[in-house]
């Protein structure tokens, strides 16, 4: 929208003042002189836009945009976080990061989660969603809302999604504890030799975290994929059936390609969740015996008072997220199938 229609007379200084006042005060206080002006409609609209955007933008700029920008800057300093002074140290933090073994351990754990969590969760989610949707469909009958009780399944599966990840971590920390359900359960089914004194203390901790991460998200993907599978017209399944395709073939040739877009966005979303995993590590793993990138960042910033170094880790985490999302978008791209 252009400032004012061309060919309109210029405002006198007094009018300009009045218009400015009108812009800044609520509509009911608009001076009559302005209200009767034919440019008032435009002013009214611009005033509305500015007023409605001002507060959200202000909050957003101060609490979201500015911290993100500051992070890049602080990553180049030796700021402790608790003193007002810091010196600019260039890429020293990044140099240190490359030589920091604990940083690499955390990165390896994060990468492990990033690769495996989406793979396992989406595979389970797709499988169960297919079972829920197509499993009970009468052969040749097409349509139908899936297996009987499909709604109940989805409600139960989805439940971990509605409770706090911190509560999930508390529950699983109890299950993994030395006298917890896992050890007791293994003993009860005769696998006593598999019991471990400490699941969350040793090198299996990251696998325990992975299991909980997958557990809590499978239901989410069952619901997500169910929705996109049920939008596939029944005729396509009938056609596949007439051509003699079995269930597995139908899944890989019909269902998967037609839900591919959802699978791909779901994959990116799950990867981002896996790169977080902070709450699980922070609550479940005692004294952060095992770290992922966010929990290592947290320790450096708020326990070791190394805010500068911590933000450098944050930048690394950001780059990792970015690379992952880009790779997924490029690799997973396919011809869009129009229905």
């Amino acid at each position, binding site marked *: 929208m252009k400032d004012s229609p061309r060919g309109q007379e210029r405002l006198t200084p007094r009018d300009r003042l009045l218009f400015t006042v009108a812009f800044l005060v609520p509509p009911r206080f608009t001076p009559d002189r302005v209200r009767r002006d034919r440019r008032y409609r435009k002013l009214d609209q611009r005033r509305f836009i500015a007023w409605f955007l001002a507060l959200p933008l202000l909050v957003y700029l101060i609490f*979201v945009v500015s911290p993100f920008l500051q992070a890049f800057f602080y990553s180049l300093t030796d700021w402790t976080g608790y003193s007002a002074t810091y010196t600019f140290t260039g890429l020293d933090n990044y140099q240190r990061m490359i030589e920091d073994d604990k940083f690499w351990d955390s990165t390896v754990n994060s990468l492990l989660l990033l690769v495996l969590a989406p793979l396992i969760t989406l595979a389970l989610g797709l499988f169960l969603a297919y079972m829920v949707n197509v499993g009970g469909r009468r052969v040749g009958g097409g349509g139908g809302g899936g297996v009987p009780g499909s709604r109940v399944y989805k409600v139960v599966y989805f439940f971990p999604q509605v409770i706090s990840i*911190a509560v999930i971590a508390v529950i699983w920390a109890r299950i993994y504890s030395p006298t917890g359900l896992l050890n007791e359960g293994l003993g009860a089914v005769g696998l006593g030799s598999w019991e471990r004194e400490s699941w969350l203390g040793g090198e299996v901790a990251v696998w325990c975290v992975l299991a909980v991460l997958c557990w809590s998200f499978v239901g989410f993907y069952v619901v997500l994929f169910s929705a996109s599978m049920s939008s596939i017209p029944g005729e396509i399944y009938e056609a596949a059936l007439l051509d003699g395709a079995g269930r597995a073939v139908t899944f890989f040739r019909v269902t998967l390609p037609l839900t591919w877009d959802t699978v791909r966005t779901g994959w990116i979303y799950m990867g981002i969740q896996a790169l977080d995993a902070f709450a699980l590590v922070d609550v479940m793993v005692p004294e952060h015996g095992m770290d992922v990138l966010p929990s290592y960042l947290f320790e450096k910033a708020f326990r070791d008072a190394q805010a500068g170094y911590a933000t450098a880790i944050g930048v690394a985490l950001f780059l990792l997220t970015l690379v992952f999302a880009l790779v997924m978008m490029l690799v997973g791209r396919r011809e869009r199938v129009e229905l």
Partner: protein
Amino acid sequence: MSVTSTDPRQDSPPAGPGGAGPPTDDGPERRDVAGGVLNVFAHSFLVLWALMAAGPVLWVVISSLRPHADVVADPFGLPTELSWDNFSHAWTNANIGRYTVNSLIVLAGSLTGTMLLGSMAAYVLARYSFRGNRAVYLLFTGGLMFPVFLALVPLFFVLNNFGLLNTRQGLIIVYIAYSLPFTTFFLVSFFRTLPGGVQEAAALDGASHTRTFFQIMMPMARPGLISIGIFNFLGQWNQFVLPRVLNVGDSDDAVLPQGLAALMVQQGYEGDWGALYAGVTMSMLPVLVVYVTFQRQVQSGLTAGALR
């Protein structure tokens, strides 16, 4: 239970265990039998995962009703008599009541603020063209790409400078700020789908822009507002990372997830887990009730988050 009942539409009985593999190459005459096999196959997996998903949660609820000593002696047992001691202990001594109130206060402020600011920004961005519209939209949605951990350290000091660290107001405003990107993104696309004629008619009838927004467009956008409202409700109620960093002053000020995590550490020293199980149960039940009542909206609201 309806979960395990067989499909009434299935006119052939489920086949024996011999054909349990995926029936990929069955001839046409075997299809109905194959469907039955698949049905059994499908249901066994579905039931198995239902047990996996619900088991841990059920176990905590059951354990919360049993005295601590019983749970230690037999973790898989059922309660012999209902004991509410754990609950009263959790509510008063372990401060769960206080944490719940804290959570409710923060949520009341943050959810209202998020919905109001989010829909205001989204409405203007969706329905008005002006210079910089695209830039503002990209600024908001760009926030979706950045991991919150990148901002966490500077955010801590921003709040500190404003004197908002370890305060409810601080948490509220941060919740709002970090909910804005997705809320705006979601609502912009929603407001765009609303018919433009209504807006014009309102303007012709002399309604102001503000009035058109609050009295006409907001009610029309109700389905979208409900979806994103549920999304934000659960996200903010369950929020853990932000309070863990920004609300660390007085342990009495903790919000519920934070308080439960702290309670676990504390009960570890005392060796009494009953109050913890009761606390976890109490924190889950309200959400469970809301969820089962509004399951459809909750599921669509939350899965919308992945489709951004």
